[in-house]
C-alpha cells in the first residue's frame, strides 16, 4: 500500500522532472563521449582514492625525518627521492592530495552558500541592498585574486585555515553575481508570480523555487573554479602565506624545495607535477561540464 503510494509519487516526480532527468542522462552520455573529460574524471577519482587511502598507499610516514638520508635521489626505496629533512617525497605527495582536496572543498563550502545567500538577497529584494552587495562585489573583484588573498592572508596570519578564508573571500563575488542574475531571471517567470499570488512568503519562494535553480548553475561554475582554488592555494603556500610546515602541502614543498632546484631537482619538481596534474584534471572536468551545460556549445555536439 505504502510502497505503491511511493511508486506513484516517484512516477509523478519522474514525469514532472522528465526533462531534467533526460538532461542529466544526456550530460552523462556527453561526458562519456568526451575522452578528455573522462580522463579528467578518472584522475580526480584516483586522486580522491589516494587522498582517502593515503595511510595505506604511502610507503612511509610523511612527517618522519631521516637526517642521515637527506636529499637522496629517486631510488627503489624512495621512488621520488627524499627532501631536505630526509622525508619520503612520494609519501608527502600522496598525503598532499588530501590537503589540496580539503582546501578546495572547504573553500567551496564557504563560497557556495555565501554567494548564493548574498546573490539571492541582492537579486530578490533589489534596491539599495542590491546596490551595496554588488558594489562590495565590485571592490573585491577589483583586486587580482592572488593579491587580495595575499593581503587577507597576511592580515589573518599564515595558516591553512586562513588561506581558505582568504581564497573564499576573493571568490564569493563570482557566485553572488551568478546567483543574483539567476534570481533576477527566475523572479520574472510566471510561476513565481503565481506562487506569490497564492500567498507564499518570500522565504518560501526563495527556498523552494529559486534556490534549487541557482544551485545547479553555481555548481557548474564551481567545477570550473576547483582547479583554480588549488592553484591559488599552492601559490599562497609558495609565498609562505599558506600551509605551515610540516604539513605535506604541495605548494609548501615547492617553496622549501626551490633552493634544491639545480642539484636536487626532484625536491621541487615532483610536487609541482602533482599540482599540475590535479589542477589539469579539474580543469578538464570543468571544461567538459561547461561545454555540456552551455546550450550553445551543446548544440551540434549531439
Amino acid at each position, binding site marked *: 500500500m505504502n510502497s505503491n503510494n511511493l511508486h506513484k509519487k516517484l512516477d509523478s516526480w519522474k514525469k514532472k522532472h522528465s526533462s531534467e532527468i533526460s538532461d542529466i542522462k544526456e550530460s552523462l552520455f556527453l561526458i562519456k563521449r568526451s*575522452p*578528455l573529460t573522462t580522463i579528467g574524471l578518472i584522475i580526480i577519482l584516483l586522486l580522491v582514492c589516494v587522498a582517502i587511502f593515503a595511510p595505506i598507499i604511502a610507503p612511509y610516514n610523511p612527517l618522519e625525518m631521516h637526517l642521515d638520508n637527506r636529499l637522496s635521489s629517486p631510488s627503489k626505496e624512495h621512488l621520488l627521492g627524499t627532501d631536505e629533512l630526509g622525508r619520503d617525497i612520494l609519501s608527502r605527495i600522496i598525503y598532499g592530495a588530501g590537503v589540496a582536496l580539503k582546501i578546495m572543498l572547504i573553500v567551496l563550502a564557504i563560497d557556495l552558500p555565501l554567494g548564493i545567500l548574498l546573490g539571492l538577497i541582492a537579486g530578490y529584494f533589489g534596491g539599495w541592498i542590491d546596490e551595496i552587495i554588488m*558594489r*562590495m562585489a*565590485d*571592490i*573585491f573583484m*577589483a*583586486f*587580482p*585574486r*592572488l*593579491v587580495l588573498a*595575499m*593581503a*587577507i592572508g*597576511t*592580515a589573518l*596570519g599564515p595558516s591553512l585555515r586562513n588561506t581558505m578564508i582568504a581564497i573564499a573571500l576573493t571568490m564569493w563575488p563570482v557566485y553572488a553575481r551568478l546567483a543574483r542574475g539567476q534570481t533576477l531571471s527566475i523572479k520574472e517567470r510566471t510561476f513565481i508570480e503565481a506562487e506569490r499570488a497564492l500567498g507564499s512568503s518570500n522565504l518560501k519562494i526563495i527556498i523552494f523555487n529559486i534556490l534549487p535553480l541557482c544551485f545547479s548553475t553555481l555548481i557548474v561554475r564551481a567545477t570550473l573554479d576547483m*582547479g583554480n582554488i588549488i*592553484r591559488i592555494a*599552492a*601559490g599562497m603556500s*609558495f*609565498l*609562505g*602565506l599558506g600551509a605551515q610546515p610540516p604539513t605535506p602541502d604541495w*605548494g609548501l614543498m*615547492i617553496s622549501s624545495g*626551490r633552493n634544491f*632546484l*639545480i642539484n636536487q*631537482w626532484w625536491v*621541487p*619538481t615532483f610536487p*609541482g607535477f602533482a*599540482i*599540475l596534474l590535479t*589542477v*589539469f584534471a*579539474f*580543469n*578538464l572536468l570543468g*571544461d567538459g561540464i*561547461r*561545454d555540456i551545460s*552551455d546550450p*550553445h*556549445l551543446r*548544440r*551540434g*555536439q549531439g
Partner: protein
Amino acid sequence: MLKYLMKRLLLFFIVIFGVVTVTFFLSHVIPADPVGAILGENAPQELIEKMERELGLDLPLGQQYSRYLKGIINWDFGISLRTQKMVAEDMRVYFPATLELAIFALIIAIIFGIPIGVISAVKRNQLPDSISRVFSLTGISMPAFWLSLLFILVLYYHLKLIPAGGRLSSGISPPQLVTGLYLIDSLIARDYIIFWDAFHHLIGPGLVLGWIQMAYICRVTRSSMLEVLNEEYIRTARVKGLKEKVVIYRHAFKNALIPVVTMIGISFGYLLEGSVLTETVFGYPGLGRYAVNSFLSLDLNAVIGSVTLIAIAYALSNLIVDLLYAALDPRIKY
C-alpha cells in the same frame, strides 16, 4: 556615451576608494612590528618608538586612515620602510618594468592564443583540437612559480638560452628614461645592445606568463568561436558560397572577438597576479616582486601603494575593454 562614461568613472573611484579602505584596514589589524623589523632585532625600544612617531604609526587608526586618504589624493603613499624612499617614487621605477613584462607576455599570448583557439574550434573534436586543448589546459593548470623554476632549470641552466633573471645584464645600464619600458626607451636611444639585452631578459618571465595567458585566451577564443560557428549568419555566409577562410575569419572571428577582448582585459589582471610569483622567482625588479616583499616585511605604505596601483591598473584595463566593446560591436551604443 558621456553619461555612461561618467557612470563608469564614478564606479571606478568608488572601487578604488574601497580597495584603499580594505587594504588599509586589512594591513593595520596585523599585530606586526614593521619598524622593529627594519631597525633589526638589536634596536632599542626608544628608537623604535621614535621612528613610529615619525611615521605616524602611533596615531589612532582613524586618524592614520584620514592621513592616508589625504596622501593618496596627492598620489603620496608616504615612505617605504623597507627601501626608505617615497613609495610613489619606488612605484615609478617598478611599475614600468611590470608593464613591459605584462605587455610582452600579452603579445605572446595573443599571437599564439587566438589562432590556436580558432583552429581548435574549427577542428572541433579532432586531433588539432585535442592537442590545443591539452596544451592550453596545461597552461591554465600550471603553477606560475613552478613553471618559472622549471624554465630557469631547463632554459637557463641546461640550455643556456636565457639569462637567469633580472632586467638587464650586470654590465649594462638602463637607457635614458622616457617611458620606463626598456625596449622602447632603448629604441628611442637607438641603443640596440640594450634593446637586445632587455629583450633577452624578458623571454623567461615573458614566456611563463605568456603561456599561461595564452591558455586563457585560447580557451575563450575556442568557446566563443564554437558558439559563433553555430549562429545562423555563419550558415548564411556558407550559403553565399564564401570560402571557408572568409567564413571563419571575416564572419565568425569578428563576432567571436568580443568575448576574447574581455578576456584580454581580464588577462591583464591575471598578468599582474602572475607577475607576483614569476617576478619573485626570476628576480625581475617589477611591481609584483615589490608587492611581495612589501607584504612579507609588512611595509604598510608600500603594501597600500602597490595594491592601489595594481587595482587601478586592473580597473583601467576593464574600462578600456568596455570602451573597446563599443568599437567592435555595432549593437552596443552607450
